[in-house]
């Protein structure tokens, strides 16, 4: 039982930040696509902006790892 709860906690620790990251990236991505259509020279910055929210899921991953091991 306890093992199952630990696994569930780890899953939640990574799943919620992953959803949050996906939501943030969807917003940034659509805005970025619009910006790139207007100014193609912004594509480099847009790629970086899209990658920024990934910190959330990386931190979630670290927490999940700490929970499991």
């Amino acid at each position, binding site marked *: 039982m306890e093992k199952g709860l630990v696994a569930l906690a780890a899953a939640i620790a990574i799943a919620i930040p992953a959803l949050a990251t996906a939501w943030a990236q969807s917003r940034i991505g659509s805005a970025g696509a619009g910006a790139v259509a207007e100014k193609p020279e912004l594509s480099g910055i847009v*790629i970086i902006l899209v990658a920024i929210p990934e910190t959330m899921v990386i931190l979630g991953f670290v927490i999940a790892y700490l929970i499991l091991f």
Partner: protein
Amino acid sequence: MIKVMSKIQIIGPKGLLDEVIQVLHNTGIVHIESVPSRISLEESYVTRMPVEKEKAVLRERLDRIFERLKGIYLLLPPQAEAASGYRPGLGEVFVVADITSDEFLREIAELEKEIKGLHAEKAELSDELSSIARYERILKGIAPLVAKLKGANNFETIGITIDRAKEDIIPLLEDEISRITEGRYQFFVKDIDRDIIGVVITYPRQYDEKIKTLISTEAISEIKLPQRYAAMTLFDALRDMVSRREEVPHRVRDIDNSLKRFSEEWHKRLETLMGLVRDTIDELKALTYCAHTRFAFVITGWIPKDKYYALEKAIKDRFSDRVMVHEIAIREDEIDLIPVYIKNPGILRPFEVFLNVLPPPKYTSIDPTPYIALFFPTFFGLILGDAGYGIIIFAVSLYLKRRFKGREFVSNLASVFIISSLFAVVFGILFGEFFGDLGERLGLIHPLLFDRIKALQVFLILAVGIGVGHIALGLMLAIVNYAHRGKTRMAMAKASTLLLILAMVAILTVLAGYLPRGLITPGTIVALAAFVALILLEGVLGPLEALKTVGNILSYARIMAIGTASVVLASVANKLGGLAGSMFFGILIAGLIHTINLFLGILGPTIHSLRLHYVEFFSKFYETGGRKYEPFKKTGK
């Protein structure tokens, strides 16, 4: 590195201004500064140089000529260097007077007319081809019906198309036509495709008006032929379309060949002419940046310090003592206006490509290129960490570098990946990875450092440890830079952040049992002192900034996370390949998954390594807001 710049002033008699501008243009090292409007208020004897009327007219004329040449140039098919028939001979050196002469403009006008004419004809032919393709299907469908009616001179034939969804109206339409023509008609129906039914109706000419009205009021689409065929009967139109379908591509090929011939003769020549016109426009524009007194002109500008003597020599050789160049002191309020010129040694230069997406750094900031050149390949190698993938990326990058030699951006990017892929090979050997665990399965290599799938904790600690080092380096660069510029308070704030971070890392290391417990007290004291110093120096925001830095360090865990994902996917490819049963399907499945992983293995490590630089590392020391050094140099060929 950011080159040290000198502010210079060139003073000489007004009569020599045009020649001086030409010399500056040829040397191509001076970033000419526009005369600020306030200069006329501060120093009444120096004013902004007015533009002579004839030069303004010439500039306008050249602007128009440039646009015209560019228009023709863009209409010509591009010409490969070797294929061009044009070689500028000794007798063909253009000067501006040639370009603005009436004779030349007449020649250009004729060329423009011919080339535009060819393009217009080509566009017309391609429209015709596409309309033939559109109508042909319909016309071919009803051709057999029309053929039957050929020779009926007093009869009118029309073709209509009806959507299959409205199929029900066909009998109603026939009834109505029968009523109008009192039974003197022929009505043919033929399926053209899944959606369209073709109908051909033949009737005595006297009923034409009534039937056309019926068709238009019932909103049935009569087959309207393109303009060229409008006057023809359906049968003649079809016959003509079939023959045109054969002729048009031949004519298009002829036009293409003519354009190619024009291109061989004119493409390179137009490039040269455009270069000359653009350079002359630039020279005329540069005149407006100058200041003057009653007898002298004054040009102010910036040059890299190490080029000062070259400029002085060029001016002296040409004008002796009649024109003077001297270096002037840079005022405190001008420091942020100094143009930024970044130049690195050959091996580092390709990495400058990553700075192009950011605004230029301030003159007083730091050029991060050398650090990117070291850390980008390292992070890339650590994340990808596979000798097999590394070798493939190395080979592809090498090919791209050779293939796109002339294209600076692609060539630089290829150079970056050549270096980065070598790091991936090295880390692949250290981690014992060759297409995932394939190398180990075949007994080719074994992990020398650690196995990334098994030693997750070690890899995580390594990644975060690299983060601590990288961020500490960023903070140290900021400290040195602020101290160098005399901004002691800022330097101390950054030093406090660095101390706080290092103390926290030390405490965590002690708690994890990697350092002796005796270090916990000094570590805590240092952390508290740094915390207090941060509040004193930067207020409440100071500790918050330090907290953000902790987040930045943890963000380096992505090196381990994405690296592990990559190696797991590679191992999955090998496992699934092994389960396939036959060797052929095994290789096919494994190859497919490895290809996907290789693609992800280029994209992921690149984006994440860049992100670690742009967001985590640069935020510690990189200050944007600089002005790019744009020397006044010739662009023409």
